[in-house]
């Protein structure tokens, strides 16, 4: 998840409910996916990155697209209601949504008929018995408008989409101290399992928290009413462990964690198998073969894809950025870097990209062409850091 910045003229930029707080905190604001967002605060990208890995970072991700998808047949309750809404969304994604337990969250992708990735998203099943038949979706900022249109066009008769991105804010609190910090305000946070949701009250208003994030660290995503978002954000920031973190560090954190950025590492031309996301395609879904692009995707699972997303470690200290060509010993192009930078925690340049299957094995020596000059590199396992999600 995470999104491609889109160009937008400055007057049209949207602001999140924390905009004034970002400015007050000294953030450098940039256009991102149609919003004016903080790219960094006073600590700077490296300081913010390290702080998140060591303590806790607070991210405003209100530009993303949270929505509820609710089964239209109101006569259905319990598992039957869940099955109905799950069957509807499963026509668009390859993830096993039906198999989610109440409150469980799963990563999946909207696929086009060719099996290309239209967007990636998180899908969570409602926890409460009286809310079965509702899914909580979070789509990428830059893709949410087209995602919502896609859902309505394809399954609008079976499930009703309610976007909640305009009256709710989305915060991410990430890092090893996130559990202690959030538990001071929301006691339910402590025992929440990884990739699970619970409904809580924040500042007297209903809110949803999930134990999830996009940094490779333990942490939470908090969906709360705009009216209380700033008050609550200030309370979190008042805790000694918490610093505000901008999009710059969000990018270096997710890259070290080996997580895809939509529009860069995955797009409509890449399949989930090529993107090394096969793990997210449910076993039952493979057997049923009833998701968009199933023919191509199942063939790629059986025969192996022609190219694959891999981690890349350039030798030395210089980063290899997005767009860097990957060549073999003879100089023939075998791939391209789709995300690359310097990993502050890895203390080394790290990158990911696509290479021809023959060169995709971990440890394979490859050459990167950086500013016209060859640079030695190696195909590397991802993540580049040890993930510390709560088990």
């Amino acid at each position, binding site marked *: 998840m995470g999104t491609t910045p889109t160009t937008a003229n400055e007057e049209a930029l949207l602001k999140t409910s924390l905009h004034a707080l970002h400015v007050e905190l000294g953030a450098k604001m940039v256009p991102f996916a149609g919003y004016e967002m903080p790219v960094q605060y006073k600590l700077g*990208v*490296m300081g913010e990155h390290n702080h998140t890995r060591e303590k806790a970072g607070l991210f405003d991700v209100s530009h993303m697209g949270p929505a509820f998808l609710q089964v239209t047949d109101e006569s259905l309750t319990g598992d039957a209601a869940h099955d109905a809404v799950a069957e509807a969304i499963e026509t668009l994604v390859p993830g096993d949504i039906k198999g989610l337990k109440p409150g469980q969250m799963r990563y999946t992708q909207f696929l086009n008929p060719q099996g290309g990735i239209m967007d990636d998203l998180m899908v969570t099943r409602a926890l409460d018995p009286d809310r079965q038949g509702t899914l909580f979706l979070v789509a990428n900022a830059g893709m949410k408008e087209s995602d919502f249109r896609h859902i309505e066009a394809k399954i609008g008769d079976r499930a009703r989409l309610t976007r909640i991105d305009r009256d709710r804010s989305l915060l991410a609190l990430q890092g090893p101290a996130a559990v202690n910090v959030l538990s001071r305000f929301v006691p339910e946070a402590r025992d929440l399992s990884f990739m699970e949701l619970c409904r809580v009250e924040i500042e007297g208003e209903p809110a949803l928290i999930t134990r999830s994030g996009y940094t490779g660290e333990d942490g939470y995503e908090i969906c709360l009413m705009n009216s209380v978002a700033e008050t609550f954000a200030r309370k979190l920031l008042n805790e000694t462990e918490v610093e505000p973190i901008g999009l710059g*560090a969000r*990018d270096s954190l997710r890259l070290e964690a080996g997580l895809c950025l939509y529009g860069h590492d995955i797009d409509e031309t890449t399949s989930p198998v090529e993107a090394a996301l096969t793990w997210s395609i449910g076993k039952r879904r493979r057997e049923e073969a009833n998701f968009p692009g199933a023919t191509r995707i199942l063939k790629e699972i059986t025969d192996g894809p022609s190219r694959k997303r891999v981690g890349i470690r350039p030798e030395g*200290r210089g980063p290899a950025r997005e767009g860097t060509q990957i060549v073999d010993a003879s100089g023939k192009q075998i791939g391209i870097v789709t995300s690359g930078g310097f990993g*502050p925690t890895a203390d080394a*340049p790290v990158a990911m990209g696509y290479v021809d299957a023959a060169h995709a094995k971990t440890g394979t020596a490859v050459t990167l062409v950086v500013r016209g000059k060859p640079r030695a590199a190696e195909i590397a396992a991802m993540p580049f850091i040890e993930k510390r999600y709560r088990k």
Partner: protein
Amino acid sequence: MSTIKFTEDHEWISVDGDIATVGITDYAQGQLGDVVFVELPEVGREVAKGDEAAVVESVKAASEVYAPLGGEIVEVNDVLDGAPATVNEDAEGAGWFVKLKLSDPSELDDLMDEAAYKSFVAGLD
């Protein structure tokens, strides 16, 4: 006595005789953020004014540093190889990039003095 000049690309040039020491300004390092790598040219290379002379990489992005004047690279700052953050800590001192033997010292006249650079930067914010 040395003269210090500045460019609109946020480089500083300290001239002593026909040798110019070149670096990026404190304003520039602040804009770039934490420097993680500096690619320096080979000693002995001839550069024309405007040629790419170095690349400075932050966590976020790579930025080219262009030769502010023409000449021969006579020395590069090897300290940056092991300690690129020196650029952040002391951009206009220990964080220098290259020393150039100027081919045409009169090119210096086109550059800004410190007062002109300060007002140039003030106009950017």
